[in-house]
């Protein structure tokens, strides 16, 4: 994921600052074997997101809004000028450790495609057992919803969803039941930790994970960053709020193109690019051209 970035100065500055906080090379966390660890994945995601953003900024591309999914929200907060990258990295390290520790075994996430939230809710309600708790978590699209909780519980819901007409229902390759109340202790500790970090007024509006509102107040953004890990990410709504506010070009920071796929489907009339798929230079070119039109 760090490989998609241009080898520019701004990216090197971010990498160097990561290395100094980590006391080791950030690329170690980026090695294939390290990417099994939640912590390493999150560090790499943050570094890739912020590194790319700084490169865009240096190339003269400045967005009107930012949003990030899950740990991506920390990158978004850095991009909006709400927290410094070093502080974000410390927070993400801490968050990753807490998440790894919370449920070492037997928990995870699943995803259901082709079924709306109402129906999935009914299924979860019907099959819920306290011994194997499951929750509806992220709403990535109206028909792409994740589940978080105990593996046997998730298995049950996935089976029931398939029987009730879901197009696809499967486990995700993660070992933490993120974005559900099982992680509320992580949110509490993270909230304490974030209190010691300076938060600034956002330079551009930041779309929150939990309420899918545009947030303008640093206190609200701090709360969103702390509580997101134990709350459902309302990604479809957050991106819809950006769209309704006039966004007509979405550019996804590396790695990957998951979010751009979702945006392409949700907003067929917009332009959607990702660094991973279109390359950095093309993204810069398109962003500048769209800006000159408006």
């Amino acid at each position, binding site marked *: 994921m760090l490989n998609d970035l241009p080898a520019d100065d701004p990216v090197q500055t971010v990498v160097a600052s990561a290395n100094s906080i980590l006391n080791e090379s950030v690329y170690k966390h980026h090695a294939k074997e390290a990417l099994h660890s939640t912590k390493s994945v999150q560090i790499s995601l943050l570094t890739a997101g912020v590194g790319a953003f700084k490169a865009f900024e240096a190339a003269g591309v400045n967005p009107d809004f930012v949003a990030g999914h899950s740990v991506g929200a920390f990158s978004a907060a850095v991009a909006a000028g709400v927290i410094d990258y070093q502080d974000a990295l410390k927070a993400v390290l801490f968050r990753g450790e807490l998440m790894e520790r919370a449920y070492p075994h037997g928990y995870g996430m699943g995803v259901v495609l*082709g*079924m*709306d*939230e*109402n129906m999935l809710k009914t299924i979860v309600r019907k099959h819920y057992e306290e011994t194997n708790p499951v929750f509806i978590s992220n709403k990535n699209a*109206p*028909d792409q919803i994740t589940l978080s909780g105990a593996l046997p519980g998730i298995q049950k819901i996935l089976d029931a969803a398939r029987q009730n*007409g*879901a*197009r696809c229902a499967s486990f995700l390759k993660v070992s933490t039941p993120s974005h559900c109340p099982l992680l509320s202790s992580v949110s509490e500790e993270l909230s304490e930790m974030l209190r010691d970090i300076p938060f600034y007024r956002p330079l551009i509006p930041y779309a929150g994970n939990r*309420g*899918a*509102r545009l947030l303008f107040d640093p206190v609200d953004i701090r709360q969103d960053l702390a509580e997101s890990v134990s709350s459902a990410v309302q990604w479809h*709504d957050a991106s*819809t*709020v950006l769209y*309704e*506010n*006039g966004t007509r070009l979405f550019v996804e920071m590396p790695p990957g193109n998951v979010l751009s796929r979702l945006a392409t489907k949700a907003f067929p009339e917009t332009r959607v690019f990702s660094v991973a798929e279109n390359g950095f230079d093309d993204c810069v070119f398109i962003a500048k051209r769209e800006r000159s039109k408006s």
Partner: protein
Amino acid sequence: METMEQAVNQKRSWTTRLDAKKKRIDSVKGLVNGRVIPTDRIVEALEKLIRPGDRVVLEGNNQKQASFLSGALAQTSPKNLFDLHMIMSSLSRPEHLDLFERGIANKVDFAYAGPQSLRIAQMLEDGKLTMGEIHTYVELYGRLFVDLIPSVALVAADKADRQGNLYTGPNTEETPTLVEAAAFRDGIVIAQVNELADELPRVDIPGSWIDYIVVADEPYELEPLFTRDPRHITDIQILQAMMVIRGIYEKHEVQSLNHGIGYNTAAIELLLPTYGESLGLKGKICKHWALNPHPTLIPAIESGWVDSVHCFGGEVGMEKYVAARRDVFFTGRDGSLRSNRTLCQMAGQYAVDLFIGSTLQMDRDGNSSTVTRGRLAGYGGAPNMGHNPGGRRHSTPAWLNMMSSNDSLARGKKLVVQVVETFQAGNKPVFVESLDAVDAKKDTGLATAPVMIYGDDVTHIVTEEGIAYLYKTDSMEKRREAVAAVAGVTPVGLGHDSKKTESLRREGMIALPEDLNIRRTDAKRSLLAAKSVEEIVQWSDGLYEPPAKFRSW
């Protein structure tokens, strides 16, 4: 006695509204040049001409937007302007809701908010906005003259002269209605125009109704909302269109009608010159339309199907075509289209035989709704046209054809047709046990569930399975059977006993394609009179000039 004398002595002023208006006009004396507000001083002028707590009607249709004035209003200071009560037929632009986010306005009455349906729901939940009511278009226009009389009207036109006369070109839409409501109750009327001209091509709104004009820094926003690219029409939509032409338009001799915005109805328009022609229906059906200038109607017009079209608004790219076909369209002396949303909605309500539209959800009684949970989109105009108006008295063959009893006072009925596929994209059933609208009512505290078209108004439902002739059913039980029979494998359709299908067919309560002599295999795109926007342009002799986003060549 004493109190009575006091009452007589305290002379009441009968000109408080006019006096207040004069004060406002005085307050901008140094700022304006006659009736013209300088472009760069519009924000300042609005802060003086509008007062906190005012009812402000801001022109925002689903097509034409007073975008310069809405942008300026959003730039006013909430210290000077606050607690505004916005009245808007359509909330579409980001700044429409910024007004509430910034505290300039706090209450809204509207008809449609599709493009801002999430933000408005969020703001309602967050208490940033107080909801008046959600209306249909005609209903909202009506209230402008009763209990929602505006203090200020902010509208858009193409051109003005220095006397304030306005030229709206083809996009008159609702401007005259909004202006009338304010102008004749001593409200302030401000019109943004694209240019100031010495002479206007024609006068759409007289200058004596207008207080101020301002030249916008860029032309008002205009959405080509009714352009449907035939490339996206599917074989299923063509099958449904064939069923509608055969099983409804021909059967009931439908001569006047409105079509919605969907691909379903675009398919019907494009089948008239081909499939319709082959059935010998030209001159018998579809002669008079209450309809925007749909590009997909061009082949039918060119083949001589269409006698008249009255329009709600214009359509980007259709200007030259319309001007060159003035026998068909309403046009002014200058040659361009004259549209009028209020009158066309009324025509669509009272004067046409049939309304046909589509929906996202329908329950087993035929009630339909386009509500998605967590969104507040409103109604627009569909309910105005999609119901049987009790005030109708004139008869036409189609209207009389809906009579289902021999009662001596029996009367006809408007045809209200819903065309849907049994499943939406994303595997969502259209036919459901209970509408999301019922939950939306609970979620948002609305007084009633936001139903778009009520089941008792619906006369026909068309799905890929067949047609349900609901107007023929004489009991709720029969009605539900007919709905379920065409509901496919949705939760509603699965409850249907397939043995009943045969008897429903015999009784004429439902018709399958084969009952209408339609072979499913004949429903092919090759039947479309135009299969692309480019072919529509050819039909129009090059007069239709599609916007860039519809040009693929």
